[in-house]
């Protein structure tokens, strides 16, 4: 029997690890040993707890106290005060307006959340099969294998209304049914853990924080469709996720939860892990299949669908990590329970990754249909500082931007699509009023151009053209008609591309034109970026009245384009300025302003250069 009286759960998701969680864990071991109470405390490394912005975070049971932003230096105090004397350290707790929030369950971030897929993330030790079993793990698999026929399993999923969480929202039961109905000597199930959408990290957290749940979901799916082999395709950028899932497979095999004749039902199953090598398009299911086969990860036209001709030509289901993460709970709690959450067509919960200019960045799981306002302001805590909300990009690089006018939109597959955005994998990138939407659109386009596999020309050439136009606009060479040209290109690329990448890549541009057309127009007509983000469409100016002539700016200027004296004050030679921003940063009296628009001197210089080039050509 153990003498343990404290469970110390340290979040060791990638976010907290990048903020130093592992060093803190080591320090706890040292300090507990010094106090001679190492045998009274269980130190447990968990998966992501969600509020990454507060990292490193930890929860201490039995009280359930939540500490945030813990540093190595805080450890001695936590042990001496909390563990030895029973006085939790309030300075490390979350502060809300006036009161201090001690317990995890009272942290506002968690309050509107309903955890299904993330149920165990941040609560159990992901490397312990026993802890997963303690939370009811593998019970669903046991019941399914011993009491249900494959068709019954598919029917339960159908009743639950579960749709794919990997982006498309395709009803999960239909895919399973197709492969179930296909007669073949070999069938495959693949778990898609490629998670390439910038701003999405739920699949990583789930694989790292609760790998057995995904494995159990995969086995239930395999039984339903008659597959005996599974693959986890995980991007190489996620070494910890790869390690954890490999470990889970190993543990399951050791106790006979995987392998031959599981639960004495005759069901045999084996799974392997495959990794990518840095290519976004490999998240697309056909590309992924080619990548597992050892080829370039190019998408190929559908049909044939993977359900008919997938891996090595055999019927294959590709399911997203989060989709599989929901399966076991649906069986434990019932299809009705799952279907009671969400909206008419989008059932259950969805995990979102909140990022950008929002207070509580991190992972949240909420019922489908929650409004953007609740998601961003209640769960996400609103904007950082005094900034105003400007836009939110949903659905990754191929999603769309929504605005203040859409805050009361419910988040579900259909509502988002209607408004020009999409659910995608659940990335929610929040932007404040400092952002230039043209620049943001250019950034997303740049991502898609780089990740285009180049196989089909609308995507390869068309996206490039769109990017060139955006670059032209943001550098002050925009022309009348550019907006229409972007729309024309965008629409035809959407129609003609081979895979989802090209089909959706124009979305950010099209949606920003739809909702922020005036910004595009200002860039093109007035050659001005009102948010002073596009460097070619803004300039720095020293205010002579405020300048104290200290010369610091002139000394820091890398191109020595600032001249003046204590008496005359300083000025910027605009034509030579490279807009590095050093002067703006160093000025001790903040006498330097960012001004929208091209400086007249620079504009004149551009004209002169253009004329000279013209003459030269003649």
């Amino acid at each position, binding site marked *: 029997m153990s003498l343990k009286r404290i469970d110390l759960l340290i979040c060791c998701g990638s976010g907290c690890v990048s903020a130093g969680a592992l060093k803190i864990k080591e320090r706890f071991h040292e300090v507990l040993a010094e106090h001679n109470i190492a045998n009274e405390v269980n130190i447990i490394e968990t998966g992501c707890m969600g509020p990454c912005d507060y990292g490193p975070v930890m929860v201490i049971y039995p009280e359930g106290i939540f500490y945030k932003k813990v540093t190595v230096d805080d450890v001695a105090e936590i042990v001496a005060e909390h563990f030895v004397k029973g006085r939790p350290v309030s300075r490390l707790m979350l502060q809300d307006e006036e009161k201090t929030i001690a317990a995890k369950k009272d942290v506002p971030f968690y309050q509107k959340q309903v955890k299904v897929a993330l149920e165990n993330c941040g609560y159990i030790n992901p490397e312990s099969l026993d802890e997963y079993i303690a939370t009811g793990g593998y019970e669903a698999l046991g019941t399914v294998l011993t009491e249900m026929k494959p068709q019954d399993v598919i029917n339960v999923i159908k009743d639950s209304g579960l749709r794919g969480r990997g982006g498309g929202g395709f009803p999960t039961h239909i895919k399973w049914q197709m492969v179930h109905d296909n007669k073949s000597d070999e069938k495959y199930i693949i778990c898609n853990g490629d998670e390439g959408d*910038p701003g999405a*990290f739920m699949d*990583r957290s789930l694989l790292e924080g609760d790998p057995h749940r995904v494995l159990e979901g995969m086995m239930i799916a395999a039984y339903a469709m008659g597959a005996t082999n599974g693959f986890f395709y995980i991007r190489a950028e996620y070494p910890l996720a790869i390690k954890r899932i490999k470990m889970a497979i190993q543990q399951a095999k050791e106790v006979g939860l995987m392998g031959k004749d599981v639960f004495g039902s005759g069901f045999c199953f084996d799974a392997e892990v495959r990794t990518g*090598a840095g290519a976004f398009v490999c998240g697309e299911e056909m590309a992924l299949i080619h990548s597992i086969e050892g080829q370039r990860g190019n998408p190929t036209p559908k049909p044939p669908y993977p359900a008919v001709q997938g891996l090595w030509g055999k019927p294959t289901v590709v399911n997203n990590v989060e989709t599989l993460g929901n399966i076991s709970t649906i069986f434990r709690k019932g299809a009705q329970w799952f279907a009671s959450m969400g909206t008419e067509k989008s059932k259950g919960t969805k995990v979102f990754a*909140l990022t950008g200019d929002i207070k509580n960045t991190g992972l949240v799981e909420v019922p489908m249909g929650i409004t953007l306002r609740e998601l961003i302001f209640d769960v996400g805590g609103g904007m950082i500082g005094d900034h105003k909300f400007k836009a939110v990009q949903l659905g990754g690089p191929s999603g769309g931007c929504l605005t203040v006018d859409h805050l009361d939109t419910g988040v579900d597959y259909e509502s988002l699509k209607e408004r020009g955005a999409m659910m995608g994998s659940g*990335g929610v990138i929040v932007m404040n009023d400092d952002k230039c939407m043209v620049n943001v659109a250019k950034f997303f386009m740049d991502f898609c151009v780089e990740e285009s596999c180049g196989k089909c020309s609308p995507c390869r050439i068309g996206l490039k053209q769109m990017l060139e136009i955006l670059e032209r606009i943001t550098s002050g060479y925009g022309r009348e008609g550019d907006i229409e040209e972007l729309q024309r290109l965008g629409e035809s690329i959407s129609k003609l591309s081979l895979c989802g990448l090209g089909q959706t890549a124009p979305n950010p541009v099209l949606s920003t034109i739809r909702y922020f057309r005036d910004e595009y127009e200002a860039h093109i007509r007035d050659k001005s970026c009102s948010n002073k983000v596009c460097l070619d469409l803004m300039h720095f100016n020293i205010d002579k009245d405020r300048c104290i002539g200290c010369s610091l700016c002139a000394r820091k200027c890398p191109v020595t384009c600032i001249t003046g004296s204590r008496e005359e004050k300083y000025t910027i030679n605009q034509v030579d300025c490279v807009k590095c921003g050093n002067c703006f940063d160093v000025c001790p009296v903040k006498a330097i302003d960012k001004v929208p628009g091209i400086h007249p001197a620079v504009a004149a210089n551009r004209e002169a250069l253009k004329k000279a080039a013209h003459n030269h050509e003649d």
Partner: protein
Amino acid sequence: MYKEICAKYAPTKDNLIYILHEIQDTHPQHYISGEAVKDVSDYLKVPENHIYGVLTFYSMYSTKPRGKNIIRLCESPPCYIKGSDNILRKLKSILGVSVGETTKDGKFTLELCACLGVCGNAPVMMINEDVYGDLSEEKAEEIIDKIRGRN
């Protein structure tokens, strides 16, 4: 040496990606040489141009020698929104290299990459297998100094 790595895997085409990963990871200069491609081609009985096709498709592979430590700064939108361009400027200036280049002492190669999935702590960079989040210019410099001192 490459032959030994190959021999750890079954000679089937689907192992190509893993063999290439291991060759690159174990090479002190983190790259895949022409000689390696030849050995892999012999072992798996696939033409060299197929292997080059795969090598150039995936961004993690390099056919050029690289530094001892590979810095991969995330350039995806959530990190950009939180100021990854400032970090890039800083890294370039303290290392004295542009993106894709290796420092003269061979210690660092600076690369950009797509989202590392740690966007909650943006901006983010990965050095070898370690992820560093919530970067500021000062923090980035400290991290580089520390690694420089270590090896």
